[in-house]
C-alpha cells in the first residue's frame, strides 16, 4: 500500500528517486493522479515554500524539491493529458530582451511546474513579439518576465505595452521578478504582480488564475 505521507516527505526532502518510486506505486494501485498532485505533492511544495520564507530552505533545497516534484509529474502528466485534464494555468516565462541571465527564471519555471502549471519556457533575451506569439499560439494566461540588470528592466515595460498594442493585455496576468525589480516598478509599468522570490511567484501565479 503506497504510503502517501512518505510521498509528501520525499518531495519536501527533495528525494527524486523515492518520489518517483512512490508515485509509480500509488498509480499502480489506482490512486487518482490528480489527487496525488493536489492532495499530496502540491501541499509538499507549499511546505517547501514555507520553509524557504522561514529561512530554513534556500535555492539548493528549492531546486532539489522541484526536481523531485518534476520526476513525479513526468509519470503523471501523460495520464492527465490522456483524460483531457487542463493544467492549473499556462505560463509563458522568459528573461527579457537584452538579458541572458536565467538562474532565477529557471527556478521560477521549475517551481511553477511543481505547482501544477504548464510552463512554456521561452529562454533568455526574449522579445515582446515572442511573448505575444506564445500567448496567442499556446493560450498562455500568465506572462512571467525576469530581468537581472537594471539596464534590461525597461524591456518589461516595452513588453507590457506591446501586449496592449496587440490587443492581448487583458487576456493575461503579467508577473515580474528579478534582483533590481521592486513592487514600485511593477506598479509603475502596470504589471499585475511582483514577487521577491520564486516561492512568492508561484503563490502569485495561483492567485492570478483564480482571480481571472
Amino acid at each position, binding site marked *: 500500500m503506497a504510503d502517501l505521507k512518505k510521498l509528501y516527505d520525499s518531495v519536501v526532502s527533495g528525494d527524486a528517486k523515492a518520489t518517483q518510486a512512490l508515485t509509480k506505486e500509488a498509480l499502480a494501485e489506482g490512486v487518482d493522479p490528480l489527487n496525488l498532485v493536489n492532495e499530496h505533492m502540491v501541499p509538499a511544495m507549499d511546505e517547501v515554500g514555507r520553509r524557504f520564507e522561514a529561512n530554513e530552505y534556500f535555492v*539548493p533545497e528549492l531546486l532539489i524539491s522541484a526536481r523531485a516534484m518534476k520526476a513525479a509529474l513526468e509519470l503523471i502528466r501523460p495520464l492527465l493529458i490522456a483524460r483531457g485534464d487542463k493544467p492549473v494555468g499556462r505560463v509563458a516565462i522568459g528573461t527579457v530582451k537584452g538579458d541572458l541571465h536565467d538562474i532565477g527564471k*529557471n527556478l521560477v519555471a521549475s517551481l511553477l511546474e511543481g505547482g501544477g502549471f504548464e510552463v512554456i519556457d521561452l529562454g533568455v533575451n526574449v522579445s515582446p513579439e515572442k511573448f505575444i506569439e506564445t500567448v496567442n499560439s499556446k493560450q498562455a494566461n500568465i506572462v512571467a518576465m525576469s530581468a537581472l540588470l537594471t539596464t534590461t*528592466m525597461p524591456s518589461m515595460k516595452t513588453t507590457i505595452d506591446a501586449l496592449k498594442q496587440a490587443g492581448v493585455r487583458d487576456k493575461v496576468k503579467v508577473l515580474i521578478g528579478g534582483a533590481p525589480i521592486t513592487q514600485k516598478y511593477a506598479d509603475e509599468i502596470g504589471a499585475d504582480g511582483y514577487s521577491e522570490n520564486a516561492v512568492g511567484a508561484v503563490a502569485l501565479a495561483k492567485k492570478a488564475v483564480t482571480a481571472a
Partner: protein
Amino acid sequence: MHPLIQQLTSHGPVITDGAWGTELQARGLGLGEFPDLWNLTQPERVGEVAQAYVAAGSQVILTNTFGANRVRLTEQGSAEHTAEINARGVEISLKAASGRARVFASIGPTGKLLMNGDVTKDELQAAFSEQARALAAAHADALVVETMSDLEEAKLAVSAARETGLPVVACMVFDSGKDKDRTMMGTTPEQAARALTEAGADVIGANCGQGIAGFLGICKRLRGATDRPVWIKANAGLPTMVDGRPVYTTTPQEFAGYIPALLDAGASFIGGCCGTRPEFIAAISRNLSGT
C-alpha cells in the same frame, strides 16, 4: 599577508572604485549591451571610466572584464576573443591608472548553476583559469573574484586565480533570506569567509545585492570569521524608474556617511557597486580625509 595587500592596507582604509556598467551606459553603451566587448570596440570610453575613478580618489580600480570568461562570452558569440578582451581590459585600466592606482582585475560569475548541471566543475575551472592567466599576463596587480552567489563556483574561481601567483580578493553577494544575509544558495558570511580563506584568498569580501546599510552587519560577520582583510562594495540602494531609466536614490553624501560605521565594522577596502559613480568615490575620499 601578501606583500601588496600588506602595503596597501598599512596606510589605512583603501578606496576602491564604483560601478562600471552605468558609467559605460552614460557614455553610450546600449541597454542590455554586453560591456566587456567595449574593450575591443570602444576602448577610449572604457578608459574614461577608469580615469574618472582614479581622478575621484580610487586607490584601486578594477577592469571591464566582469563577464569575460569563456562561458559567458560563448553566449555572446565572442568566445574567440576571450584572451584579447581580458588583456585589453587590464591594459586600459593600467593606462588610466598611470601608477596612481593599483589595477585589480575583475572575474565575475559564469551565470550557470553547478547544481543544475548547467555546467561542470571542470568547465568552470578551465574558464576561470583561462581568464585569470590572461589577466595576469597583462600585468594586473591582483585578481578580484566578485559577485559570487555559489560557494562552489567561488572556490573554483579562487583556486584558478591563485595559480597566477597574484593576490586574490574573493567576494560574494549576500542578498537572500529574510535578513538578506545569505547568498542566493544559502551561504552565510561565516561560511563564505572560512571556505574562501581556506581556498587561499588574500582578501575576503561582499559586494552588490543591497544598499550600504545592510553591509555593516555582513562586514562585522566577515571580519569575525577570517584573519584576512575585508573588502566591501555596496550598492547605492535599489533602483526606481524615472522616465524609463533606472535611478538609484542613495546620494554620494548618504553613502559616504556610512563609512565610519563600515570602518568600525572592520572594512579595509571600501568602494561601491551598482548605482555608484565617481562622485561616490570622491565623497568617500573626503569623508576619510576628514574634510
